[in-house]
């Protein structure tokens, strides 16, 4: 195989300067003419479609505006539906089964609002700098902090990937499909998505799969939710959860970890860059992120509502996995409802496996300076694709090893996500406030207020968990 084409030169780099100047009118245009890559041409094609839709649509007021939105939607929806992954949907399901309709319904919406605040910053960072998150951290903070940050990401991503394949296995297990076939099928999906050699096609295939996260809606409707009670819970945040306080705290942490995680920051920024978004697309990027938040929070609430019958019938779902939830729900939501629930867990696992392995591969390529774009053919960016497929395959293989510590991984994955988030947020806030990078797109007061508040909240949630673990009697546990 050939060496990837854009290995960085060993000589000193020139200072980068974010600019909105067109490449053709820049001072280095003549030099760039002979160095264009497949990636540049594919990205230019995407930019042409956007420019044409913008020219034809003149903004958001016509069908041209809708076409523009269609072209620019992607990273935001994908990141949120990707984060509605197998362990997240199981956390929401466990919440519904344990506490019914009450405090956790508005609480989950709050966690998505937190996620929206964080992810909007990545849109701006990606569109303005055209660099991925890992690349910017290494560039601005050096290797020391870069490797710490990557350590958190790689560990979190790998553990999460394992849980995705556990979800895939459990989801298809409901239909009697053997684990090796289920996990193999998921790997085929990952492979099929990346062999397109085109970001746009990859994005549309993954979006097409991600929309099946909506399977939790019919499953919830079949559970016949008490809508006035849902409305009451949304307005009053009651009834408050009662019982084992350690369990409540763990579910609070798991639900936060189900919505805000480091991989989302790295993924969305890299996807915005790969999609070729520019500062003028930031408004559309925000809309894309809001749309993703709305869809994902709706599906998360649906997962809670679908499992409420278990709460009403006093069934202990503490140790349930995907297939067990579906089996337990069958008497109340029927075989169709249970099948939809199991398929939803399967879908959640597949989409997240695609998104998370891509997030790891983007970061890997950015740090090593090898080609890292889904617009590259495999022969030009084979380390990127190899890492992507390798990380997914390793996680899939671990799931199939007899006596592997899967229970350990399930227990820790969302908690680790919450604990690793404050440092990731600190880097994000430092970068998005860096006026040398961001210029007029740097955070304003309210952006920083929201970002700092979210960071403090996450640190407090982690400290609460730590205090309780060391001093269990603090909460009366």
């Amino acid at each position, binding site marked *: 195989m050939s060496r990837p084409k*854009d290995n*960085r*030169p060993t000589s000193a*780099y*020139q*200072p*980068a*300067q974010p*600019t*909105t*100047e*067109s*490449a*053709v*009118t*820049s001072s*280095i*245009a003549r*030099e*760039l*003419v*002979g*160095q*264009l*890559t497949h990636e*540049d*041409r594919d*990205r*230019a*094609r995407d*930019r*042409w479609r956007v*420019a*044409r839709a*913008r*020219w034809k649509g003149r903004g958001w007021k016509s069908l041209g505006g809708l076409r523009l939105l269609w072209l620019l939607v992607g990273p935001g929806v994908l990141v949120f539906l990707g984060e509605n992954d197998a362990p997240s949907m199981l956390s929401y399901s466990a919440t519904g089964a344990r506490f019914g309709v009450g405090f956790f319904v508005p609480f989950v919406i709050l966690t998505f609002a937190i996620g929206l605040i964080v992810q909007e910053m990545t849109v701006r960072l990606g569109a303005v*700098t*055209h*660099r991925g998150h890992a690349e910017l951290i290494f*560039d*601005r*903070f050096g290797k020391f902090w870069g490797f*710490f940050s990557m350590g958190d990401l790689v560990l979190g991503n790998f553990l999460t990937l394992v849980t995705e394949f556990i979800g895939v296995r459990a989801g298809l297990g409901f239909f009697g499909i053997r684990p090796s076939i289920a996990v193999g099928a998921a790997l085929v999906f990952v492979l099929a998505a990346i062999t397109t050699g085109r970001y746009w096609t990859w994005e549309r295939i993954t979006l097409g799969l991600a929309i099946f996260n909506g399977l939790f809606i019919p499953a919830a409707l079949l559970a016949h939710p008490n809508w006035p009670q849902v409305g009451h819970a949304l307005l009053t945040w009651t009834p408050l959860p009662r019982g084992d306080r350690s369990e409540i705290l763990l579910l609070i942490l798991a639900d936060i970890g189900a919505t805000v995680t480091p991989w989302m920051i790295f993924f969305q920024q890299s996807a915005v860059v790969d999609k*070729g978004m520019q500062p003028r697309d930031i408004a559309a990027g925000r809309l894309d992120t809001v749309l993703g938040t709305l869809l994902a929070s709706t599906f998360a609430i649906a997962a809670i509502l679908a499992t409420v019958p278990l709460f009403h019938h006093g069934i202990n779902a503490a*140790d349930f996995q995907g297939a067990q939830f579906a089996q337990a729900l069958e008497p109340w939501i029927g075989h169709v409802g249970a099948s939809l629930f199991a398929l939803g867990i399967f879908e959640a696992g597949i989409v997240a496996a695609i998104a998370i392995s891509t997030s790891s591969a983007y970061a890997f390529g950015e740090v090593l300076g090898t080609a890292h774009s889904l617009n590259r053919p495999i022969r030009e960016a084979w380390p990127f694709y190899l890492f992507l497929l390798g990380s997914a395959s390793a996680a899939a293989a671990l799931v199939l090893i007899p006596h592997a510590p899967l*229970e*350990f991984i399930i227990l820790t994955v969302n*908690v*680790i996500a919450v*604990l690793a988030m*404050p*440092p990731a947020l*600190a880097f994000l806030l430092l970068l998005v406030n860096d006026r040398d*990078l961001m210029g007029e797109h740097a955070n304003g007061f309210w952006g920083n207020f929201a970002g700092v508040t979210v960071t403090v909240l996450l*640190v407090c949630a*982690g400290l609460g*968990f*730590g205090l309780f*673990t*060391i001093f269990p009697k603090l909460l009366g546990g």
Partner: protein
Amino acid sequence: MKQEKAKRYAQAHDPGSAAAHAEHPDLQDPNVVLSLLEADQVVAAKTRTRFGKRKLSVGARLLLWGLRVYVFVMLVIVLISVIRALHGGQ
């Protein structure tokens, strides 16, 4: 007439927008590709430039170290918690 005027204006002021007037862009023409991308969006331009390391204030360094210690301590606590949970479940 009005459209023609808009096209001429776009060609002069916004090359990307000018390319949008083409029914099918010739992406084998480097100038068309470059007209659609921002200068720092081209792979060759990105690979030879760096933003460079920024000087961190004392406060920022303290924050990063504090959060690093936090993560380390919390990971130990998670490990304790999981071991307890696994033993409790057996």
